[in-house]
């Protein structure tokens, strides 16, 4: 994504110099920041370019469809899951359920009832937010890992229900979902960015990019608002937050609904691009990979989460030439990356501080007592 430049800078300048870069960024005047944002957006717009693609994608794969089918979708979903996991600190292992609700909403209403793409988009966002509330209302009183297994169960319930319902054709799924209607035929640099056809993947990438930018703005504003502060309080210490007068249940439900709505919008674009969906598109592995993207990138930090989702979506595709072994290597890579950067590739500063204290937001593992030598290790992580 548009992060690749920043990511390189990140890996080049590690440790303290990264902090210096962050200070500089925080002190930078408004115009400087806006010009960086503008550059990033232009970079993202130019990303489907074949020159970049020849390096990023294996030769047999179309880079633009890799971007739209895998990478951009994962980045959008990771941004949505980040609201739940990174900001509110609720572990959701069944995020794919909301993605599925979005996908099936457009499949049913567009292909069976003839609604247009944009109408179903709105409907799907409402439905998936509702699904978030329906799942959240009875279960959000649960703590930590109980919530994790319940959300995992919910994800499986949605998938198995789709598999068993003849209304949505069971395991065969729904075909013939219409593409989004073409908005305009205008052409720029050889692309028709608003013409959603069968052959060119780039318009879908631009559509997703539009969603991603909207989501970033929305989530960033939320994070800086009263809602974001409430989430931070809940994440750090739920009991304390409740005692200080934060209506924790209400804010947790809001996090679920907002995360779900973002996931649902991802499902709509996915279904509109693929024109067919079936329950196998929505397995637990998708939830696991998106969560891996969030944690790998640096839970709670928006650029980090996008970087993580990019890595998780891109790595297995890039190494497709290794065929069967690519997932094997990917699994090992996940373990190694977590061992060497347990706080994520690009953590937020606050999270890093939490990690140094040994609580890490989601709490640390048990049986982890600072014996001799371990205190030094903790100090190392905290630098």
């Amino acid at each position, binding site marked *: 994504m548009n992060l690749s430049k920043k990511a390189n800078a990140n890996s080049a300048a590690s440790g303290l110099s990264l902090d210096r870069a962050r200070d500089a960024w925080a002190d930078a005047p408004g115009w400087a920041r806006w010009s960086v944002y503008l550059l990033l957006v232009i970079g993202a717009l130019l990303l489907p370019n074949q020159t970049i693609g020849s390096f990023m994608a294996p030769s047999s794969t179309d880079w633009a469809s890799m971007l739209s089918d895998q990478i951009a979708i994962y980045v959008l979903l990771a941004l949505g899951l980040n609201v739940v996991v990174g900001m509110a600190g609720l572990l959701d292992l069944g995020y794919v359920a909301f993605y599925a609700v979005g996908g099936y909403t457009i499949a049913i209403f567009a292909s069976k009832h003839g609604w247009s793409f944009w109408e179903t988009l709105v409907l799907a966002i409402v439905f998936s937010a509702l699904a978030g509330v329906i799942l959240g209302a009875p279960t959000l009183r649960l703590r930590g*890992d109980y919530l994790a297994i*319940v959300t995992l169960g919910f994800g499986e319930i949605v998938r198995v229900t789709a598999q068993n319902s003849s209304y949505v054709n069971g395991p065969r799924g729904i075909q013939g979902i219409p593409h989004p209607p073409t908005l305009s035929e205008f052409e720029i640099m050889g692309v028709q960015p608003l013409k959603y056809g069968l052959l060119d993947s780039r318009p879908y990438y631009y559509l997703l990019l539009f969603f991603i930018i909207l989501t970033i703005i929305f989530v960033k504003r939320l994070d800086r608002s009263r809602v974001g502060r409430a989430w931070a309080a809940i994440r750090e210490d739920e009991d304390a937050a409740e005692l200080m007068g934060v209506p924790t249940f209400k804010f947790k439900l809001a996090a679920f609904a907002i995360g779900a709505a973002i996931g649902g919008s991802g499902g709509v674009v996915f279904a509109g691009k693929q024109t067919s969906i079936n329950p196998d598109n929505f397995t637990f592995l998708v939830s696991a990979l998106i969560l891996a993207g969030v944690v790998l990138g640096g839970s709670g930090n928006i650029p980090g989460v996008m970087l993580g989702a990019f890595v998780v979506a891109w790595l297995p595709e890039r190494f497709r030439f290794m065929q069967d072994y690519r997932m094997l290597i990917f699994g090992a890579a*996940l373990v190694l990356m977590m061992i060497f950067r*347990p706080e994520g590739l690009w953590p937020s500063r606050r999270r890093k501080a939490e990690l140094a204290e040994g609580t890490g937001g989601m709490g*640390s593992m048990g049986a982890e007592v600072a014996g001799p030598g371990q205190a030094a290790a*903790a100090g190392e992580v905290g630098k």
Partner: protein
Amino acid sequence: MLDDFINQFWPSTVDGLSLGAIYALVALGYTMVYGVLRLINFAHADVFMIGTFAALWTVRSMGVDQVGGFALIGVVVVMAVVAGAVAGGSAMLLEVTAYRPLRKRGASRLAALISAIGASIFIQQLFGTVIIRHVFGTSKSGGKLPVNEHFRKLKTVIDIGPIHVSNDKLIVFVGAVLMMIALDQFVNRTKLGRGIRSTAQDPETAVLMGVNIDRVVQTTFLIGGIMAGVAAALYIVRIEQTDYFVGFLLGIKAFTAAVLGGIGNIRGALAGGFVLGLLETYGSSFFGSGWRDVVAFSLLILVLMFRPTGIFGESLQQARA
């Protein structure tokens, strides 16, 4: 619906108990690791899967030529020993490679969870691409590995009152219960078991009292692995085939069972396994087999709504009472 349910009541009960026994054994691994480390060991399902391959390999290379019920017991014991050893070893290896480095760095539980998911993907793919091909000599497509024909001849039907039970289901049930009793005695009676309980209760104090945490964690993984291995042998006896992804769904169910009983609680995991196995089988005879998983997970959500920490509540040390 109701007629099916009534007609199928006794067969369902037998099926449910033998299925629940396997769930319970696998759930033990989840609940013990959770009790000690507060970690959902996602790769435990794949330790189970490794066990099924070990058991299958054993039964294939044994060349059974006897017929009849009692020979099965001997075969199952050999399978369980091999599978338990292989799975226990794998679980310890898993702990050393995927969790210990994170633990030493004081990583968050979320990071450990992702490491677990990565390890799970790795093990599955290792079996799907390498082991099946090079050890068992089958290609990945249609990679279901069945047992040999001789093994099937060992199964007979026994009548207990009005109920017909096939001997393999009986062996699964009895074998699982024996393992559970052994584990319960180990955790409650031995010095190492006391170490495990004290670590679960309060790791810091346990260290001050001279408990070697690393050894406790290793033992916990070893025991969980052995239990999963025995469960895998029993699974092969019942299902007669395996594949590299069999661990996934069974693992989720077993974890569900552990949560149902109250995670971290050993006896709770046992009860949760049997409750889940029974209700799932009843549910599938009531609603149709396609809805089996929906019944299981809906049950989980329902129970947790009313008992937010499982049926018996949390914590390993309470299991002592």
